[in-house]
């Protein structure tokens, strides 16, 4: 494999990750070959220890593979240095975490605009995009509140707005519904599906939640660091 095609946003080539924390090597990933194309709404599932977390860390550039290569939007991220990776994540990847992980000392508006500040977007444009994004996730009127003044569902909406505001190619979501009640989780999933349809952004979930699996258009099951099944609905 020489290079990814334009519509292929993530390509992994024999990605292997070996952890060796106490001198005992543990193979977390065993030569994963996967291609994810733009606009997918994909769930990566599997039992604990199957390698979901490690796989998402590697395709997002948060961690590096022991062997193999990862192409993201046509670039080999496994060969980028710290600053290049930071910039690449800033411009191409949006993260949604299980525990929301908003910056507690920043207001909703400041949390959402932080990534744009890093990218040097002008104040007026930042304000405009934050407003638009908060409207899209149904959070108008809470711009000046701190995360602790919001419910779990509202915080996760802010996290989605933060992930999407810089218009990245890919949204990576780690168990986004795990801390939410089923109704709120369902509403958020509906919203993400709608945003996926409207914007064409690629959504990749790591999940155990059957609701997420139901809504995913592609389901990749990992087992013992390898792709066990890969089905498209």
């Amino acid at each position, binding site marked *: 494999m020489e290079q990814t095609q334009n519509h292929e946003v993530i390509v992994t080539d024999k990605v292997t990750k070996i952890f060796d924390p106490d001198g005992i090597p543990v193979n977390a990933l065993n030569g994963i070959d996967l291609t994810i194309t733009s606009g997918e709404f994909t769930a990566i599932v599997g039992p604990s220890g199957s390698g979901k977390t490690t796989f998402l860390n590697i395709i997002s550039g948060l961690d590096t593979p022991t062997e193999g290569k990862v192409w993201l939007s046509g670039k080999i991220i496994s060969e980028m240095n710290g600053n290049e990776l930071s910039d690449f*994540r800033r411009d191409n990847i949006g993260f949604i975490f299980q525990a929301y992980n908003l910056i507690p000392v920043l207001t909703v508006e400041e949390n959402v605009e932080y*990534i744009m500040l890093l990218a040097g977007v002008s104040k007026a444009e930042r304000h405009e995009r934050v407003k638009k994004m908060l409207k899209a996730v149904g959070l108008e009127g809470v711009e000046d509140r701190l995360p602790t003044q919001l419910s779990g569902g509202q915080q996760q909406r802010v996290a989605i707005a933060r992930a999407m505001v810089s218009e990245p190619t890919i949204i990576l979501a780690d168990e986004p519904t795990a801390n939410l009640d089923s109704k709120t989780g369902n509403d958020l999933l509906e919203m993400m599906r709608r945003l996926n349809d409207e914007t064409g952004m690629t959504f990749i979930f790591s999940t155990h939640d059957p609701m997420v699996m139901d809504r995913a258009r592609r389901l990749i099951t990992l087992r013992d660091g390898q792709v066990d099944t890969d089905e498209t609905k």
Partner: protein
Amino acid sequence: MFFILFKLAWRNLLRNKRRTIIASIAIGIGLAALIFVDALMIGMTQNMIKTATASFLGDAQIHRKGYQDEQELSLTIQELDKVTAKLAKEAIVHYFTRRTFSLGMITSPANVSAVNLIGVQPSTERYLSQIDDAITKGVYFKDNDSRDIIIGTKLAENLEIGIEDRVVVTVAQSGSGELSQEGFRVSGIFHFVDEAMNSGMAFVRIKKAQQMFAIGDNVHEIAIKFTSTAYTQERELPFWKTYSQYGNEVLSWAEILPQLKIILDMSKYSKYIMGVVLFGVVIFGIINTLFMSLYERMFEFGVLRAVGTRPVGMARIILFEAGTLAIVSIAIGSIIGFGITALFAHLGLNYTGIEMMGVTIQEYIFPVLNIQQFILYPAAVFLFTIIAGLYPAWHVAKMTPVDAMRRSF
């Protein structure tokens, strides 16, 4: 970006108010201590210089070259009239007075003692020394009585005499070495904190001393008081060359008492050493505070890294927190430092009678506040705080997002 970093730093410090307040007070106390010690050192230095110069020494003295070492009676000031005429016109000279010296014996009906007999001009001497202020019994000098002698309390006690009692002083004359004796009547008894002055000095009118020493109208010393003591440090002034001719030399108090000058200079180093020790404590306090705060927010830092904050950006967040902590601490320290120093600058510190660096302190020490203490030391605290923040900042910068988030995805 600057504004959001400052907001992040400030709000993060407010997240754990108690810890921030304790850390700020600790740093602030360090700064306040530095301000106070600096003010105290200035006050002490001024006090000691004043004690050394105002009691008797003067700001500067003119002697015949070699007199300071040999104390030879014949080594009187050359071209005295020219020298005094020039001094009278010198703009930086406030007052000057002539003196003569000789070692001798002073005898009372009860006892005998060695004495340094000093001939002075009463009218001008009072501007140069504090003998008149130190009189505890009797008077300074009576109108024109050439037989007046003023002695110290200890000498009076040794000789078992009081006011109006008679004494006989014996000295060796210049040149011939023949003994000269004169009778005097005690007109005043002085008391300085310095016991050496109380037991070993006796003052008579200069004319009588010149007769006894057989030195004509000559003198051994001209003591000078400048309009500002700062002139003693300004060696480039023509004054110092002008009066170091005709075989004479002019010396500042620092040259007459070099040991005091050296020790005062050394006291500056002790201040710097104390500063380094205090800043060392401050640095470790800041590092500890920042690391505690950092480990509490590890996942948050992981998120910031994950969403695209560069390593240098992460370091900047920590440095902004360190800087903000420094600003808060400087405000606290400056207020405490100003308050305590101003209080003691008003009340003074009683070190009287204590001998320090070879000088017996005679007056309360008043710490001296100056603007530099509120510029230099706060700037140093800020700089040291930023330096202290470099280590945690580097620690955060080199952290990978995965390490920071631990559980990550």
